[in-house]
């Protein structure tokens, strides 16, 4: 299995102008990943899947991450044919608010279909070129993206009046009345 540096130079040789950088893992003992420029992500993905030496034919895991300045999608690739991996590639959006498009890798690896839908749903990254981009877990018509770190859950969530509330109210009224009576006694 090639090292991350070798994979980087192989991508640069095969896809001219591919902006590939090594994203170091802060914990030096664990493997590093590759940051791909979104413009040429599809070409890079096709190269990684079809290259004879790499043959990363299996996309295992797609993760959305919410960073303070941008949103990120992380892809974990393995090879079922060569039985090696993982190679981790990641892409950043420009910001968290309006420029949140990333190219979908579903045309290359079908296993991204539901996972990218989930990230669209929970993080709000819009995957361009996805064949069927809809919310996966939240319902249609839901507005926000609950996995974002600044998400605020509505405080009236699933509030339903129950019989218990009425009982509680009666108790409170009675207590207030008793307190009033006591005050009147003390005054007298």
């Amino acid at each position, binding site marked *: 299995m090639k090292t991350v540096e070798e994979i980087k130079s192989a991508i640069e040789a095969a896809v001219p102008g591919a902006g590939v950088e090594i994203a170091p893992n802060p914990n030096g003992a664990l493997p590093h990943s590759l940051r791909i420029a979104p413009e040429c992500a599809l070409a890079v993905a096709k190269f990684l899947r079809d290259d004879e030496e790499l043959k990363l034919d299996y996309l295992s895991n797609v993760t959305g991450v919410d960073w303070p300045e941008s949103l990120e999608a992380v892809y974990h690739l393995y090879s079922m044919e060569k039985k090696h991996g993982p190679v981790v590639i990641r892409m950043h959006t420009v910001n968290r608010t309006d420029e949140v498009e990333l190219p979908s890798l579903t045309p290359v690896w*079908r296993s991204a279909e539901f996972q990218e839908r989930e990230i669209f749903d929970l993080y709000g990254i819009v995957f361009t070129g996805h064949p*069927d981009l809809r919310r996966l*877990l939240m319902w249609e018509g839901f507005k926000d993206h609950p*996995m974002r770190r600044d998400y605020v859950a509505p405080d009236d969530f699933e509030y339903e009046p129950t019989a218990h509330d009425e009982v509680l109210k009666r108790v409170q009224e009675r207590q207030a009345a008793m307190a009033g009576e006591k005050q009147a006694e003390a005054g007298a």
Partner: protein
Amino acid sequence: MTKYVSLEQGELSFEDSQLPESRAWAPALVDEKPEGWNRPALIAPSGDGELLEVAMGPHHPSTHGVFRMDVALDGERVIRLKPVFGYLHRNHEKIAEGQSYLASMPFTDRLDYICPITNNWAYALAVEKLVGQEVPERAEYLRVILGELTRFQNHASSIGFLIQEMGASGTPLMYAFREREKILDLFEELTGARMMVNYMRFGGCRVDASAGWLERTRKVVAGLGGFVDEFERLLATNEILMARTQGVGVLRADLAVNAGVTGPMLRASGVNYDIRKVDGYGIYNRFNFRVPLGDHGDVYDRFMIRLLEMRESVGILEQALRDIPVGPVMSATAKIRGFRPKAGESYGRIEAPKGELGFYLISDGGPNPYRYRVRPPSLINLTILEDMCLGHDVADVVLIFGSVDIVLGEVDR
């Protein structure tokens, strides 16, 4: 030239499908793989009747929980199928990001609640990778023993459910549950709970197994081989089962790989990929076992693969119970209080009974994970559900869906 169903024809009215044209891609069964070969090959309606749209679920008895399939039917034939998720969504990942690493351990039990031990194991593995934690020998053996018992009971009950959906209600499922009950009794004795075990810790296991427990486990395992033989004699050559499952729901190997299908589903399509062999995580490279492979990729192969894997699990259990050493079950260097991994990220994965279960963690050095992600095999194995069901009868959809073997706690998280 195949005529594809498109929404412009106005015959289908899925409320949620505004499908772009790229959906009408070429069929999958061609060898040269044109652009979009990995999309469902849509089927044209016969045109001699009206199409019927049926919502199977979320309370259909065959969905094993709250799962919905919106199917469009031409007579009995399925021409479209859309899975709908989210009825059991509780944002497991968000909750886990708001609490300490250890506090999520009992919550992983609730993902795939048929196999809590393997969920614990995958999570413990990811965290141990993140902090570089060693696990003592005896704990590794206990993990293998419990993991294989879990695999055995999962496969047995999933076969039982599959046969029950074919109409054989009762007998095979009760045979499977009889064995599952013995295994759950062992779990209860060791961990205190039949299902919500909360057994593993980062760097070992929570409690040690007594000599008596190991003896009782040996006794149970000695009976499991006979059960597999009995189960196979009962089912494998059953005429109704063969007629209903052979050639139904075929999944091609290249599509299975491309769609990220893992576990018995993948191996039934003939792809030799078992993470126990590939990664050799824990101590799996010490055991002698074979990986069964199917050659048709249909429902029958998936059933047979599970049956054969049960037999291999019994083999692993016998070896592990023979070799288990004495010693501690928690590493002396394991930290419980003030657990703060260094900044970094790790991905740990295991061969869970349903496929590749992975946990991806990003630590920023704090007591909570910055990002906690579950890679759910049940959800990703459903990606190709539509591909497998198109063109089959409604009754077959129930079987094909049953042969995927999912648990909704993991699909919706």
